[in-house]
């Protein structure tokens, strides 16, 4: 068996593992992003700046949605 074919065998076996690992990582990060959104929502009740609080919440929500979309894309194309 040549080195290249050995390499091919190894990557064929660990390829799916890498994909599952990456999906799990994105999922866990999505949980973190959700926690950030919730924390901002709660903190906006503690300290509320009428003009900026909604902007900050929107940015955090957009970040969370981007993570969700990334997860779905990764699920489809990987």
């Amino acid at each position: 068996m040549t080195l290249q074919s050995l390499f091919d065998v190894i990557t064929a076996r660990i390829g799916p593992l890498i994909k599952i690992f990456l999906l799990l990582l994105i999922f866990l990060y999505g949980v973190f992003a959700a926690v950030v959104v919730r924390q901002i929502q709660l903190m906006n009740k503690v300290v509320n700046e009428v003009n900026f609080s909604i902007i900050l919440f929107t940015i955090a929500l957009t970040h969370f949605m981007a993570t969700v979309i990334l997860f779905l894309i990764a699920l489809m194309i990987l």
Partner: protein
Amino acid sequence: MPDIFIEEKHKMPKSRNIMFPAGFALHPGGVHFDTQGENEEIHLFLRRHFITNVPWILFAIFLLIAPIIVLPVMETIFPFTTLFTSQLSFILLAFYYVVVFGMAILVSFINWYFNVYIVTDQRVVDVDFVNVIYREVASTRLNLIQDVTVKTSGVIRAFFDYGDVFIQTAGTEANFDFHAVPHPQQVAHEIEIIMQKARNREGVSNLEKQLKE
């Protein structure tokens, strides 16, 4: 006969809503906090000076531009990356930028934004947003404040006029530390003015009570 024995009423400047997160706001408009009383007015709304955000901003910029520099030489440094499909590379790069935005930028910003120090006409409130899963809110009444100390040290702090204000309270109440706030001398001065007014109000109400008795 001119009115010379009547105390001049302190004219409160008209409050304007804060449009952008401020480090120092006197009589801010459009700001409320959770336990604010109905007749309680915010006199000072403080955060750490914006210059304290420069380290994480620079780090975030470095992380954002790092792929542009590293990617062309990635195959030389990490030969196994030649095995990555274009889809995997795209997902990894997108994930990298999402993580940089979330952890390096958003979390750092909210750490600065939600760490506030509030001085009202009745008390001092310290909101400590330590991290995403831990926060602390402490408050003390103005009549329990015994001492206000200002400390400014270092070239950068002197240049940008920011420093620490230490508020010592009586008894078992916790002390309040305002770290890296803009215009610390003015902050201490404003606190002392508010404390004096609170004492005057207390003195008047005690006098009224005695007269009624």
